[in-house]
């Protein structure tokens, strides 16, 4: 058995607000093997984004420990950063910057020399179907193109773990399908471990090898989509989800 590339124990984050403490994540455990697509599924406010921000070194946990891409999150955050890619919900693009320049600069920020960074940008642009858009400012991209660029930026350093925070929120069905294909291809071709958060049940079902369902900051169920359905005698993931969380859904395909 290989050691997990992602191994999280008791991860917690409490925000101290004026109105009192908010326990956004409470003692979360999860793990993923190399090359696995792990879906973190939960309603809005379940603590998905907070969890991903902690695992991506952006937010210090208030409790627990984690190994991310073989490095200890608390002892060696710089080592983690060199080995992960992170695509936030908000994306993080400079609207006036041309696509090609964003790609090259991202490589430079990862410490690639100028020529190496250009080569890597060209490679990713060809691979992610961005080659015709290199001179375009990112503000002029469609939603699907933007997402592809953001994922390309996350892949510049050939990460062992790629974090995608709600990657298809706001995309049209065609772009969603393209993005699912892209995630599968990244995993297949590079053995990248992907942790993606979503509140779309169909997305979790289609894309994830294994799911953790989080609610109110803790894992409430875990397993493959088929396991979860079988365990709760449910025909669809949605029925399983309802049985687990006791929640009504606010959209046919979303939690």
């Amino acid at each position, binding site marked *: 058995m290989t050691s997990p590339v992602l191994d999280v124990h008791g991860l917690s984050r409490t925000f101290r607000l004026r109105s009192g403490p908010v326990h956004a994540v409470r003692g979360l455990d999860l793990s993923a093997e190399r090359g696995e697509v792990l879906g973190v599924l939960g309603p809005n406010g379940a603590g998905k984004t907070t969890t991903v921000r902690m695992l991506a070194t952006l937010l210090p946990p208030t409790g627990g420990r984690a190994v991310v891409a073989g490095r200890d999150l608390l002892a060696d955050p710089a080592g983690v950063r060199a080995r992960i890619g992170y695509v936030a919900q908000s994306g993080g693009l400079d609207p006036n910057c041309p696509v090609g320049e964003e790609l090259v600069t*991202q490589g430079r920020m990862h*410490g690639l020399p100028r020529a190496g960074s250009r080569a890597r940008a060209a490679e990713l642009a060809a691979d992610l179907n961005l080659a015709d858009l290199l001179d375009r400012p990112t503000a002029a991209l469609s939603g699907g193109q933007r997402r592809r660029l953001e994922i390309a930026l996350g892949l510049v350093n050939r990460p062992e773990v790629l974090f995608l925070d709600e990657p298809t929120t706001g995309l049209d069905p065609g772009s969603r399908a393209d993005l699912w294909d892209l995630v599968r291809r990244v995993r297949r071709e590079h053995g990248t471990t992907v942790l993606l958060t979503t509140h779309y049940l169909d997305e979790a079902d289609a894309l994830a090898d294994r799911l953790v369902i989080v609610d109110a900051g803790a894992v409430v169920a875990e397993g493959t989509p088929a396991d979860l359905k079988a365990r709760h005698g449910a025909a669809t993931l949605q029925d399983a989800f309802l049985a687990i969380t006791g929640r009504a859904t606010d959209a046919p395909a979303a939690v």
Partner: protein
Amino acid sequence: MNRLIADTGVIFGRSLRQTLRSKTALTFGMLQPLLFLALMGPLLSRLDLRTGGTAWQAFVPGLLVQLALLGGMFVGLGILIERQVGVIDRMRVTPLHPAAPLLGRMLRDVVQLVVQSALLVLLGVAFGLRAPVGGVLLGFVFVALLSAALSMLSYGLAMNVRTAPEFAAIANTTVLPLMLLAGLLLPMTLAPGWLDAASRIVPFRYTVDAVRHLYLGEYADGTVLAGLAVTAALAALGLAGGLALFRRSGRTP
């Protein structure tokens, strides 16, 4: 250390390209001091401002400090927008040196403000400014130090406020009294005793007095040295404070 320099260079290059792309920002940043020079300078040109030289030798240094003050104080708006769209987070998830995002931007600001200062001086010469070249060049050192200090503090502030209006309110209310009290547009040599005394608590007062002396060809008198000491101390404070505030912003959501 090498990593810090290389990473600062990467962010400097990125920021400089952003500036060169946005031609409107470049123009409008310059516009205000140019208007002061063209529309207010001539009003003063025949007055004796009691600084020991021509009115232009007192007025242009004031405009340079004003440019550094206003230009430096508001650069935070840029990083605030980048923070809100997630650019800063994206940088923080790379192995980039943690000080590089601020230092690279600050160097861009210093270059931009010194170039704008040089244009301002050239235009001043066209209007009638006469000052020794050595003094003018040394004056740019003061502009650079002051720009660095304010730019760092501005970024530190912008990383710790919630919204752009909040940032603008704080920056505006800080800058206006400081600008008036420092005697930038009109020197404090004209002020009544109480105002002159009050203005001595404002660090920019020492900067502008020093640059005025440089423009008179006095390079090593007490005023210049005091101005250099205060301005360099301000730059050190801005550097330390800005970086501390930037680190702080990374520990909070």
